[in-house]
């Protein structure tokens, strides 16, 4: 045997080192001392988390912002339900993907239903989009906004854009004068509306053919495609383009707050579904179905209903958005004129009245295939 003592020690240490890479089980127990939030930008800022941390000095509160709903959902699907306590996504993803897959769990109705009374009339209880089909309350709404398309009002007037609606993008004169913001799930909804289809009802073969024609024309005549709203706003302000397909207060507000008030989110004045042609997004913040849940999660959901925190969530870094709690005069008083103009408060109510709620798209699977194919061609 030529195995020396030194070799033996080296190898044993090597094996121990390797074992260290695979820690057996988790040593963390008792989640009262931590809470993790997976959210769109806003809930992760110091303005929101700072006061909450102060109120819970012993707890480690962590938040991470995602850049798309499906990215965040993929994290939970990949096993991160053990990590997160709250998730903040647009409501169709909560109702259509997260709840059916058992990734989020119902909220305590007695505790949270009273908050709906302080919200804008659109969200009055029982606000259907916060509930699953089985009647459970699955999330709390806060930020929302009309989301259709955006124009440079120096080039295309608001009236013209609203009157023409989605057909604006089919006008041959618009060839090479607009961009497509590639929020794919939104583009699909908007292309359905452009093709006079109801995206929230099943779409048959003839409808899919109409959708295909619209998708090909919109991609074919677009000057640029990007999923970056800053790049898109820059192109709009610099005159590379005069409008962009898919956008709204969420994407226009940063440019408007910077003084470019000629950038404006447009809601078509008419459309194919009950006379409506616009769409509105609404975020829901839901409790993740964590096997070892943190009791702080529901505390945080209550905490973000306070007026100061509402304002901080609405005016976060990056984008600015209306919030459901603005019906409360205490909340409303915290916004100044410029801020209200950035989120197009002057037309918010009428835009909401002309907008459909963003819902699950039943033919999404077929449409995304057609969509990605049209995008490649």
């Amino acid at each position, binding site marked *: 045997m030529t195995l020396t003592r030194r070799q033996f020690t080296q190898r044993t240490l090597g094996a121990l080192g*390797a074992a260290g890479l695979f820690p057996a089980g988790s040593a963390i127990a008792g989640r009262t001392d931590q809470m993790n939030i997976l959210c769109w930008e806003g809930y992760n800022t110091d303005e929101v988390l700072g006061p909450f941390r102060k109120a819970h000095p012993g707890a480690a509160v962590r938040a991470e912002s995602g850049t798309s709903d499906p990215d965040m959902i993929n994290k939970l699907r990949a096993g991160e339900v053990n990590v997160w306590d709250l998730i903040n996504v647009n409501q169709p993803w909560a109702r259509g993907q997260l709840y059916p*897959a058992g990734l989020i769990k119902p909220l305590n109705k007695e505790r949270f239903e009273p908050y709906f009374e302080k919200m804008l009339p659109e969200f009055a209880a029982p606000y259907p989009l916060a509930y699953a089909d089985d009647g459970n309350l699955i999330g709390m709404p806060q930020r929302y906004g009309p989301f259709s398309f955006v124009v440079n009002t120096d080039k295309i007037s608001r009236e013209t854009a609203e009157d023409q609606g989605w057909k604006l993008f089919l006008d041959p004169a618009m060839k090479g004068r607009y961009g497509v913001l590639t929020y794919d799930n939104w583009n699909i909804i908007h292309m359905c509306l452009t093709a006079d289809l109801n995206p929230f009802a099943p779409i048959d073969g003839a409808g899919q053919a109409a959708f295909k024609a619209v998708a090909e024309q919109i991609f074919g005549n677009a000057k640029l495609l990007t999923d*970056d709203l800053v790049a898109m706003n*820059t192109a709009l302000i*610099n*005159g*590379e383009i005069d409008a962009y397909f898919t956008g709204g207060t969420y994407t226009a507000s940063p440019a408007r707050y910077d003084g470019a008030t000629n950038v404006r989110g447009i809601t078509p004045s008419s459309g194919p579904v009950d006379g409506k042609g616009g769409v509105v997004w609404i975020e829901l913040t839901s409790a993740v179905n964590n096997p070892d849940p943190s009791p702080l999660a529901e505390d945080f959901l209550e905490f973000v209903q306070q007026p100061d925190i509402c304002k901080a969530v609405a005016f976060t870094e990056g984008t600015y958005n209306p919030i459901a709690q603005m019906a409360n005069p205490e909340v409303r008083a915290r916004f100044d004129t410029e801020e209200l103009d950035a989120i197009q408060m002057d037309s918010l109510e009428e835009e909401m009245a002309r907008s459909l709620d963003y819902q699950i798209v039943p033919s999404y699977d077929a449409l995304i295939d057609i969509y990605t194919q049209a995008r490649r061609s």
Partner: protein
Amino acid sequence: MKSIDHKLGFLNALPLTLVLGVSFLMPLLVIAGFSVMPQKVFSLLHLPDFSSFAVILKQGYYKSLLWSLGMAAAATVILFVICWPLAYGMAKVFGRFSLVLTIAVVMTLFVSENIRLFGWSLTLMKGGLFEGHMRAWFGVGFDGLLYNVPIIIFGLVYVYFPFMLFPLAQGISMVPDDARQAATDLGATRLQVLRHIDLPLAAPGIMVGSLLTFVLAAGAAAESKILGGQAVIVIADDVETAFTFGQNWPLGAALSLILILIIGAIAVYGISKVDLDAIMGRKGR
């Protein structure tokens, strides 16, 4: 006892081999596993049906693949042509100035790729740094230079420049000056020296640089997104869409697997053609 002695090398390497196997191969195996699952499932506990590959064939995904590979190849060739003289200078001519050049090129890597590309976007767009100045100074404006295929290739060339330059300089530094001088003494022209001395002897560096840039460029998405306005859709973009908005992990996995296999085959072929030990400085002869 003798037999254990023979296996000691293998046994010593075993723990690390296992760690590498688990951390490097497992993700690839998971991708391979998902690629044969039925559409839109989120676990590997289904019977394989290979439907993703049928979808890829039917729905024209080959276009994105060809664009990615084609633009990567173009960028690699352009980079080789640009970098060769510079790398030659760094290895043989510049002396201590090479260090300044190295630091200058490496510094750019400290800034995120997206930010650098966005800088180019602001420079080249209509009303941007370039066109804006032209219009202000000479009164002639023109359309922005963005949103087309050449600008995407420009972005690839710009971003992957260091990945070609440094291996190339390393490769050229391996060419012995004696061999060049001997060739010249024997009456070889400059072109002949390049063809018969420089290129073959620097081949490991050329291969490493080309593979690095090609592999990275084939999987790149930011250049097409930020500069190209997605004038063409690259394969990395299709993978991302399948995993995210498509919520179709098997399709995304199958697209990734195809890209991995193509690039893997090219890399293995390329590496088999050159003596990599030489550039690693381990040539034990």
